[in-house]
């Protein structure tokens, strides 16, 4: 399966995308995250606060309990930040 990382999730994993073949038992987003965290401290840091991480499976928003299978495209990213009002971000609108 193809994995994609965006924004600070990407800066923590250290890579933007990779193709992985986890064992058959890794068949949900949660299980995939567990498997990834065992691969190194960058992954563990990226997934340390799951409340701050969003998931998409095949380009659709998904929960952590969603089933995944070989061939899926799975992306991890922070909540989107369209920019904020007033005293907010430089994205003024």
């Amino acid at each position, binding site marked *: 399966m193809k994995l994609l990382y965006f924004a600070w999730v990407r800066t923590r994993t250290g890579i933007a995308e990779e193709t992985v073949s986890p064992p058959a038992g890794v068949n949900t987003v949660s299980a995939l995250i567990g498997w990834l965290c065992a691969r190194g401290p960058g992954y563990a840091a990226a997934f340390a606060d799951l409340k701050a991480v969003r998931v998409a499976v095949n380009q659709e928003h998904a929960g952590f309990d969603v089933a995944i299978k070989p061939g899926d495209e799975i992306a991890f990213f922070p909540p989107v930040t369209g920019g904020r009002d007033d*005293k907010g*971000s430089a994205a003024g609108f």
Partner: protein
Amino acid sequence: MIKVQQQDFDLAAEIAELTRGRTDIGGVVSFTGLVRDVSDGAKVAAMTLEHYPGMTEKQLAAIERDACARWPLSASLIIHRYGRLMPGEQIMAVVTASAHRQAAFEAAEFLVDWLKTKAPFWKLESDGAAESWVEARDSDDTAAGRWEKG
């Protein structure tokens, strides 16, 4: 129409393209979002927008279809840039055309609220030295929330 692109855009040319040959359109509303040089009081030297190619276009197309279903639009356009942008530069634009000016205004405001809160873009701000990812904020969700049905 959806355009996700790195390069800048010419609003008048985009509107002209959208309304070319149409003599049934009464009014065209546009909203252009610009980069500001301050963020929470701190000076911003540049902003880099990252997005999820493929998913971004799908989501923008879906919200545009939603707007066209809710308001009688003759034409619509969402442009969103990504990459490195400097203060004063254009980030995005929404254009809505309708025979009914109020429909055009409401649909444009709906799309802008959605883009601000839900569009899959992440923003990295630089003050010239350090860089930091902009986090989501609740007040924007409130603005988008007023469009929820029921």
